[in-house]
């Protein structure tokens, strides 16, 4: 398939891996402790597992799978709010597909649908607006979810609803922002990361500039990266080259899609409709300042949170979950006490087991489960003996 196969060429992959090995020779530190490189975005995590990239890399590189899966980090309280909205008899609740399975404290949207709630899967917020046009006697709520990648299309849809004067459409806004979250990870005292694979589609909207602080303030190399397997290998090569050359810069591997200035029209729409929240609660990471957006007062009539009452209760993550430590690279997913036993994709306890883009779900689905569990138990025994 054109424009796809070119980015999955195994010969090019082999030569990149070889070059990475060569560069590693110039980083003696990698002999004592593996270089920890974080891909922030769940889309990257998915590619890494789908193509088996981890096993192709030398042992001195460890990939840490970040929190950039909006479905995973959605706190249970927000899912409960979705369910409460969806269960109103006057409401058609519209959502992206993979958000339907996220467990709330009592049920997921999928379960609410089975019990009679009118929950409909859409592929774009504009589809939700179409449903609102066709059902003027019902309230149509769109579940706005995702980072800056999906924000412009949600914002544009609200602007379109305003232009058309569609009164029965509203947005339940759960959009979250990348930069404050990367900052929170970098500020964490147990942080060990050596570099970042930065999200490509977020950057397509926000541009290169917002990531500059990672290099300039925190002195970590960061590379904006595409989603094909060769994109990821090339980006890892660029990160390691920066480390070998003692540089810390923002580099753009994904220049075929990401302009340095991002997408001004998209940013305009975002700023018109949204403003930062004081803080937003993340599953696994807790509350992070300014890490979410809400609708501006001028769009209050399209804001489901203001139009309908939502319970808005905080539900704490189960104590046994170690998602936070996994997200920061302190432990590997399979080293978590509940991984693969109490916490599985069928019955996820923690954020990272929820969607196929979550690191734990990826290890569970694509990794050798019995071997991982044996490795964890061995490690546990050694710990007990020590």
């Amino acid at each position, binding site marked *: 398939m054109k424009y796809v196969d070119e980015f999955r060429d195994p010969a090019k992959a082999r030569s990149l891996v070889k070059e990475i090995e060569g560069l590693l020779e110039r980083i003696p530190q990698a002999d004592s402790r593996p270089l920890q490189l974080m891909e922030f975005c769940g889309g990257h995590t998915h590619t890494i597992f789908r*193509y088996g990239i981890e096993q192709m890399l030398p042992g001195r590189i460890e990939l840490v799978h970040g929190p950039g899966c909006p479905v995973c980090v959605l706190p249970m309280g927000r899912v409960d709010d979705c369910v409460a909205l969806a269960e109103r008899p006057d409401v058609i609740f519209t959502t992206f597909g993979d958000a339907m399975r996220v467990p709330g404290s009592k049920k997921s949207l999928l379960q609410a649908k089975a019990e009679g709630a009118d929950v409909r899967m859409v592929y774009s917020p504009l589809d939700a607006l179409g449903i609102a046009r066709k059902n003027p006697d019902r309230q149509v709520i769109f579940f706005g979810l995702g980072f800056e*990648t999906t924000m412009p299309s949600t914002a544009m849809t609200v602007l379109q609803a305003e232009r058309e004067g569609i009164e029965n459409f509203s947005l339940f806004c759960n959009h979250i922002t990348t930069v404050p979250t990367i900052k929170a990870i970098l500020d964490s005292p147990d942080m060990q990361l050596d570099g970042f694979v930065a999200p490509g589609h977020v950057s397509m909207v926000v541009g290169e500039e917002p990531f500059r602080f990672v290099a300039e303030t925190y002195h970590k190399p960061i590379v904006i990266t595409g989603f094909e397997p060769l994109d990821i290998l090339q980006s890892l090569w660029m990160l390691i080259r920066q480390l070998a050359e003692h540089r810390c810069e923002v580099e753009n591997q994904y220049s075929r899609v990401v302009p340095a200035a991002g997408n001004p029209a998209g940013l305009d729409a975002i700023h018109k409709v949204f403003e930062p929240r004081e803080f937003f609660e993340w599953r696994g990471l807790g509350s992070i300042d300014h890490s979410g957006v809400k609708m501006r007062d001028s769009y209050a009539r399209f804001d489901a949170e203001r139009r309908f009452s939502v319970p808005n209760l905080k539900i704490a993550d189960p104590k046994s979950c170690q998602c936070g430590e996994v997200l920061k690279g302190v432990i590997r997913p399979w080293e978590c006490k509940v991984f693969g036993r109490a916490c599985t994709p069928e019955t996820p306890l923690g954020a990272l087991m929820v969607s196929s883009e979550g690191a734990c779900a990826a290890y569970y689905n694509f990794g050798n489960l019995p071997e991982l569990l044996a490795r964890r138990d061995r490690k546990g025994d050694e710990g007990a003996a020590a």
Partner: protein
Amino acid sequence: MSTPAGKTGRSLRAETITLAHGAGGKAMRDLIADIFVSGFDNDTLSQLEDQARIDAAALLGEGGKLAMTTDSYVVAPLFFPGGDIGKLAVTGTVNDLAVGGATPKYLSCGMIIEEGMSVAELRRIVASMKATADAAGVQIVTGDTKVVPRGAADRLFINTAGIGVIPEGVDIATHRARPGDTILLNGFIGDHGAAIADARGELSLESNIETDCQPLNGLIQAMLEVCRDIHCMRDATRGGVATVLNEFAEASGTCMRIEEGQIPIRPEVRGLSEILGLDPLYLANEGKLVAIVPAGSVEALLEVMRAHPAGRHSACIGRVTEAPANTVILETGFGGERIVDMLVGEQLPRIC
């Protein structure tokens, strides 16, 4: 043969099905006579007894074991590119018999109809079932009809059960995969799943993907003629090729090692999967089989498979190894490896 409708002169004048057509009275008699008995058109059914009467001696004379299976069909929409629920209902049950090595013989047909269903559409579906049954060499010999109130079913549900005969010496079973065996597949994967996703019209994509819905009994008969010792065989319907391979791996305690580059897939289906973030290995098929065969028979099998219309794009997609047991491993075209597990729930499109 004269049809009962012809005999009795009864024909159905209504344009839509109502609860009266399931009430046991004249309306129901007319529906059965005009649509089903004349549509399926065979001597056993037109005796109009409560049960099909099958010559036991003739049936048993053919082989060692009777095979029996049943399946229900609830697909929406009822008509989709390349097929419809009727074609699916015959094909699915025929294939469930055939992959066990059985020669399919007789089918039953139970229909649950939502009131308001159009009679013209019902006729089209019955005609499609008849055409598919003829192509597969089976007869629909007994049936049942229920009409339920609006909302109690989604237009039409069909159940078919089937009986077939497994010849002496054929022993196809999921536990028989052995290290060294070869994994064969009879063509492009994911066509049915992609066609249905597209036909639901939620995507507004312009594609011309058609379902692969086809009876496999002819192909399988040709395969058994060159290799009676097929170890395992299943049709890869819901859950796709990935699910069938996991069933083989678990039942036989072996590892199924497949190569991504060898798995036939149409560019359109690949494209759709890329856009939606779906894995084609889990997409449904309705005319694809996965067979585990002794390595020595591969060449002969591929030759007859590729010569058959239902197997033109057959390929060897991998091999059975000893370890890691109970596991399916995909060697990615990119040079990596990953485990292909059973699906958890339904595949849902990814957000971004």
